């Protein structure tokens, strides 16, 4: 029987704490070639990577700010410290992780999650991985799960990284992709060899915890032909009042007849600018399945792109966005059909409350080559009051008449009848409304592992009471 998550009492403090700053090597604010060289030296980058960073910085300097989406002028780039290395070094045993860092992670439930079902944990504290562990059976199957920096120095993977790093998302993509290329730090590298089905999901948990710190983690995943991987990325950040920036980058390579499911729950603090870029390329018969819950942040720009590059490739995007007071979340998904018989489906929900603005953008491109392709987009919005806003901006560029394209958008409000119905069964008004909203978000929660679904419902409940930072 399918177990739906229960809404239980939650400990609000879990989402709203931080420790005193202890980030040792705070480099000077502002981003100059000198800083990039320091970062590069600190990391012991290979020559090509140092050049890559400096080149990306040049692109960053000459690229204009994005012209779409909500304003980001509250973001002071000079104040963002690109790289803060925690005092601790890489750890493979939980016992070796420093106490205060461990405490942060324990309050986030990471060790428990690992004990229960997850294969490995790569948790990023500030800008570097401090804890990393892949269970033996995962390693024995030939799956590589490590931080990108280590992999870059490992002769077995160095060439693989060089040939894939920022090839899907080049620094010229937009200003923050360029910034990412210059200052990226930490993140995950996953390699699943051909034919390997990893049954247990791999998990990473990113978190910001230093004033003014940017988070520029890079995730590179290669799933070879006929292989299967579920990767879970979870983000949360403590409350802060100074502008913070997240400009991560995710690049996913899905081989022939391979499947990659990429699940994300993002919960950034409400002052964050989340300008993130995610992209997947899928070869013949392969599948990419995005499951995405976007919470928190002051402003988000997030539109995972799937490039269907081989015949019969398939993309699926299931997402939810929750925009509360003071939030302007610009999210969506892009699909590029560039091979015959490819198919895609987007199923997204957005919720806006207390003046929050939620904009959903879908972009479906079907090239001349993509004959026999199918695409369907479904977008539902729920506005919880009269001062909130929800917009849908669908863009379609179809270059063949032999394609089947559908788009459906609905905007609604919580019906008073539904609230009364639930109240007549003993639920107080707030609980009734939270239940309706959780139900609305069911498209995402039923795709998530139970513990994440529970966490997401807790987040929704927190957002409904307006109690988050």
């Amino acid at each position, binding site marked *: *029987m*399918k177990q*739906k998550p*229960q*809404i239980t009492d939650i400990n609000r403090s879990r989402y709203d704490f931080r420790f005193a700053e202890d980030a040792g090597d705070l480099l000077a604010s502002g981003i100059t070639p000198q800083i990039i060289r320091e970062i590069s030296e600190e990391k012991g980058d290979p020559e090509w990577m140092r050049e890559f960073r400096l080149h990306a910085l040049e692109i960053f300097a000459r690229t204009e700010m994005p012209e779409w989406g909500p304003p980001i002028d509250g973001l002071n780039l000079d104040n963002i410290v690109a790289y803060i290395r925690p005092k601790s070094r890489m750890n493979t045993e939980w016992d070796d992780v420093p106490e205060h860092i461990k405490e942060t992670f324990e309050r986030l439930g990471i060790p428990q999650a690992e004990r229960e079902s997850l294969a490995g944990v790569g948790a990023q504290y500030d800008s570097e991985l401090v804890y990393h562990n892949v269970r033996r059976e995962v390693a024995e199957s030939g799956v590589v799960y490590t931080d990108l920096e280590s992999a870059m120095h490992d002769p077995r993977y160095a060439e693989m990284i060089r040939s894939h790093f920022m090839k899907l998302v080049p620094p010229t993509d937009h200003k923050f992709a360029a910034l990412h290329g210059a200052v990226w730090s930490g993140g995950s590298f996953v390699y699943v060899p051909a034919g390997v089905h990893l049954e247990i999901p791999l998990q990473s948990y990113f978190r910001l915890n230093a004033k003014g710190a940017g988070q520029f983690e890079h995730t590179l995943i290669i799933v070879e032909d006929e292989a299967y991987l579920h990767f879970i990325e979870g983000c949360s950040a403590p409350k802060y009042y100074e502008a913070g920036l997240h400009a991560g980058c995710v690049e996913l390579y899905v081989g022939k007849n391979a499947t990659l499911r990429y699940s994300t729950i993002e919960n950034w603090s409400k002052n964050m600018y989340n300008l993130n870029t995610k992209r997947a390329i899928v070869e013949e018969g392969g599948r990419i399945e995005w499951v995405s819950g976007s919470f928190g942040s002051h402003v988000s720009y997030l539109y995972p792109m799937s490039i269907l590059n081989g015949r019969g490739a398939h993309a699926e995007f299931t997402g939810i966005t929750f925009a509360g007071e003071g939030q302007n979340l610009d999210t969506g998904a892009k699909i590029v059909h560039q091979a015959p018989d490819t198919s895609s489906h987007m199923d997204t929900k957005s919720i806006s409350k207390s003046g929050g603005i939620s904009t959903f953008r879908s972009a479906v491109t079907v090239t001349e080559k993509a004959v026999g392709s199918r695409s369907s987009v479904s977008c539902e919005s729920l506005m919880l009051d009269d001062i909130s806003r929800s917009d849908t901006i669908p863009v379609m560029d179809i270059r063949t008449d032999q394609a089947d394209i559908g788009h459906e958008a609905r905007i609604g409000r919580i*019906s*008073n*009848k*539904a609230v*009364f*119905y*639930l*109240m*007549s*069964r*003993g*639920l*107080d*008004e707030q*609980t*009734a409304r939270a*239940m*309706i909203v*959780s*139900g*609305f*978000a*069911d*498209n995402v*929660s039923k795709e998530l592992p139970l513990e994440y679904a529970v966490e997401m419902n807790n987040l929704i409940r927190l957002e409904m009471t307006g109690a988050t930072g």
Partner: protein
Amino acid sequence: MALLEIENLTAGIEGKALLRGISLTVGSGETHVLMGPNGAGKSTLGYTVMGSPEYTVTGGTIRFDGEDITELSADKRAKLGIFLSFQSPVEIPGISLSDFMRNAMEQITGERMKLWDFKKKLKAAMEILQMDAAYADRDLNVGFSGGEKKKAEILQLLMLRPKLAILDETDSGLDVDAVKTVSAGIDAYRRACGGALMIITHNTKILESLPVDRAHILVNGQLAAEGGQELVDAVNRSGFEAFTEK
């Protein structure tokens, strides 16, 4: 002892009076029938007793178990033991019947329920109503047929065991077999907890298997007649004409 005491109740919607001075009393464990032509205010009375914000009470009082509940919100009334079976139950996507039921029971009793105990109870109640077990995992009322929705309402009645159940047109739109099943469910509720019933109906099919203590005829927002089983029989024979032409 009087369970529900309605005294000179007036209520309406957007200034339009729908209930125009209604007084009636339901004792513990009694079965009452509220009949009347369409638009007489039967459902309005049911919703107003449950505490629907759609209707504004403009005068009079509603007491339950001796407590004045006229101003209470619906959830508080539910916790005191009032239940309303909706004529058109609302569809709630994304919440399974089972999860909702457990949540509601915990809200009403204020106690956590063991999953195992809950499932056993739910299964037993669904068997009485001849509901397929798969409905427990389906989204609440979503895509249910008319009959299934009504059964799901009676299922909630069986699980929540209120002191007073108001059944709004529970029999409407049901075929003969479904009426029998639903009646069996209502009977099971009465046997299980001796609960009182206020049955809102404009026909009498559902009443065949239930002993009626008191019948009220509502016409144009006012009580036009009150009596016992004989009043139900009279309506059965000649409809409401005798009461509307008064």
